[in-house]
C-alpha cells in the first residue's frame, strides 16, 4: 500500500510521455516515408525546366513553385505590416503604459491573441466585401488582404514578445543610462532594446513561422488552388498550406497525392527550420551581446 499513489503517478506519467511520443513518431514517420521520395526538383517545378521557372520565363503548372513563392511573399508582406506596429506597441506596454491603461491594453491584446484564426480570416473577408462595395470592382480577396489579416494574427504575439523581453532587462542595467543623463527614449534605443534584442529576434522568427503555416486565414482571404505567380498585391495567389489542403480534398491521381505529401514535408521543414533558427539566433545573439 505504501507508495502506491506515487508509483501509479510515475508509471502513468512515463506512459503518457510514451503515448505522445509514439503518436508523434507514427504521424511524422508516415509523412516522412510518403513525402521524402517526392523531394526533388520535379516537386517544385513539375515539367518546367527549373532555370526557366526561377527566371519567370515559364509558368509552372504542376509543381509547388508558385505556392512556395506565394508563401514567401505572404510572409514578407505580413511581417512588413506587423513589425512597425508590434514592436513599438510592445515598447509602449513595457516602458510607458501604466495603471488602468495598461490593463485595458493587456485585455485587448489578450483577446486579439485568442481569436481563432478563422475568425480573423472572416474579418479579412468582411473587410474585402466592405471595400468592394465602396470601391466596386477593384478590391477582392488578394495577397494584400491576406497579408493584412495575417499581420493581425501575429500582432499580439509580437507585442507580447517585445514587452516580455524588455521587462526582463536587469533592473540595474535599466537605471544605468538615466543616471548618466539619458532620456527615456535614449535609454530604450541605446540600452534596453539592444539588450532585449535576442529574445525579440527569436519572437520575430517564430511569428514568421506562424505566418507561413496558417491555412484558415488565407483560405478566406485570397488563397486559391491554382493561380500561378501573383502579378501584383491585388491578385490571388497560391500558398503552401492551402495547396496541401486542396490536394487532400480533391486529388485526382496518385501523383497529385504524392505532391501533397511532398508539400507537407516541405512545409514541415520550413516551420521546423524557422524554429531552430529562432533558438539559434537567440543563443548566438545573446553570446554576441556578451562580447560586443
Amino acid at each position, binding site marked *: 500500500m505504501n507508495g502506491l499513489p506515487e508509483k501509479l503517478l510515475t508509471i502513468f506519467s512515463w506512459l503518457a510521455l510514451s503515448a505522445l511520443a509514439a503518436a508523434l513518431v507514427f504521424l511524422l514517420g508516415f509523412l516522412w516515408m510518403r513525402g521524402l521520395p517526392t523531394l526533388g526538383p520535379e516537386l517544385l517545378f513539375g515539367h518546367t525546366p527549373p532555370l526557366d521557372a526561377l527566371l519567370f520565363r515559364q509558368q509552372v503548372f504542376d509543381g509547388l513553385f508558385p505556392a512556395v513563392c506565394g508563401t514567401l511573399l505572404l510572409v514578407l508582406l505580413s511581417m512588413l505590416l506587423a513589425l512597425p506596429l508590434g514592436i513599438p506597441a510592445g515598447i509602449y506596454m513595457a*516602458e510607458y503604459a501604466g495603471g488602468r491603461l495598461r490593463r485595458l491594453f493587456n*485585455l485587448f491584446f489578450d483577446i486579439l491573441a485568442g*481569436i481563432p484564426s478563422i475568425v480573423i480570416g472572416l474579418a479579412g473577408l468582411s473587410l474585402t466585401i466592405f471595400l468592394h462595395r465602396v470601391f466596386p470592382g477593384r478590391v477582392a480577396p488578394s495577397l494584400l488582404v491576406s497579408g493584412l489579416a495575417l499581420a493581425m494574427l501575429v500582432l499580439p504575439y509580437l507585442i507580447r514578445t517585445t514587452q516580455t523581453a524588455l521587462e526582463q532587462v536587469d533592473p540595474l542595467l535599466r537605471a544605468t543610462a538615466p543616471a548618466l543623463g539619458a532620456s527615456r527614449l535614449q535609454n530604450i534605443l541605446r540600452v534596453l532594446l539592444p539588450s532585449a534584442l535576442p529574445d525579440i529576434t527569436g519572437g520575430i522568427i517564430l511569428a514568421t513561422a506562424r505566418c507561413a503555416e496558417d491555412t484558415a486565414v488565407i483560405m478566406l482571404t485570397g488563397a486559391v488552388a491554382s493561380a500561378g505567380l501573383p502579378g501584383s498585391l491585388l491578385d490571388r495567389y497560391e500558398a503552401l498550406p492551402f495547396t496541401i489542403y486542396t490536394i*487532400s480534398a480533391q486529388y485526382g491521381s496518385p501523383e497529385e497525392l504524392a505532391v501533397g505529401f511532398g508539400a507537407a514535408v516541405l*512545409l514541415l521543414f520550413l516551420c521546423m527550420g524557422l524554429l531552430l533558427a529562432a533558438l539559434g539566433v537567440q543563443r548566438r545573439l545573446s553570446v554576441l551581446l556578451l562580447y560586443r
Partner: protein
Amino acid sequence: MRRRQPAGRPARGLEYLFPAAAAAGGLFTLAILAFLLVFGFPLLVDGRLAGLLLSPWEPDRGLFGIYPMALASLLLALSALVIGVPLSLGTSCVISTLAGPGLRRFLMHGVRLMAAIPTVVYSFAALFLLVPLMRRLLGAGSGLGLLTAAPVLALLVSPTMIIFFTNSFNRVERQVLLAADALGATGPQKLLFVILPAAWPGILNGMLLGFGRAMGDTMVSLMLAGNSPVVPGSVVDPARTLTAHIALVMAADFDSMEFRSVFVCGLVLYAMTGLLMLCFRLVAALGRRTRHERPA
C-alpha cells in the same frame, strides 16, 4: 507640504509612435468585432437569435441554426481535452521532476519543435493514416468523425498545455520544494503532495488555454471530422464544427442568410474567446489570493 510625483517628461517625436501603435492594435481588436456585428446584423436583428443558436441547419427549409455546429465544436474540444490533458499533465510531470537534466532538456526542445508543427500537416498525415484505420476498425462509415479528429486535436494542443503546465510546476516556490526535499520526499512524492496541489491555478488555466485552442482550430475538424451539419448521434458520427462551417459556407452568395450565418459563428467564437479570457484572469487572481493567505 505639497508632495511631488515623478515629473513626466514631454514626449518627443518618436515617442508618439509607441502609444499610437498600441492604440492601433487595440482598435483592430474592436474592429474585428465590429465587422462581425455589422455583417451578422440582419440575422441578429430579426430577433431570431435564440432560434439561430438552437435550431438545426437546414437551409432548404430556411433554418440557419448553428446549434449542430456549436455542439460539435464543444464535443470535439472536450474530447480533445479528455485525451490531451492527462497526457500533457503526465508529460509535464516527467519534464519537470521525473526526468534527469539531459532528458529534460531534450524533451523541452522536443515539445517546442512539436509546437511548431503546422495543423494542416497534422491533419494531412492523419487523413491518410488514421482515417483508413478508423474505417477498418469500425467496419463501416467513412472513417471521418469526432473519434478520428479528437486524438489529432489532442496532439495539436498538447505542446501548448505541456509548456504551460511545466512552467506552472517550475514556479512553485523554492522554499516549499526545498522543505520537501529536506524532509526526504522523492520526486513522485513531491509531485503528488506539493507541486500538483500548489500549481492548480496553472493547471486550470492550461486547460482553459487548450480548450480555447481546440475550439479555435479549423483544419483538424475540416479535414477529419466529416462535415455533416447535423447533430452527431455518437462519437463515430461525422460532425461539423463552427470553424469548419465558416470555412465551408464561404462559397455561398454573399448576401444570403446562409452566408451571414457564418458571422454568427464568428461572433460565438469571439464571445467564447472573451469568456475564456475572463475565466483565465479569474483563476489567476484566485490563485494569487490563496497564495497570500498561506502563512509565510
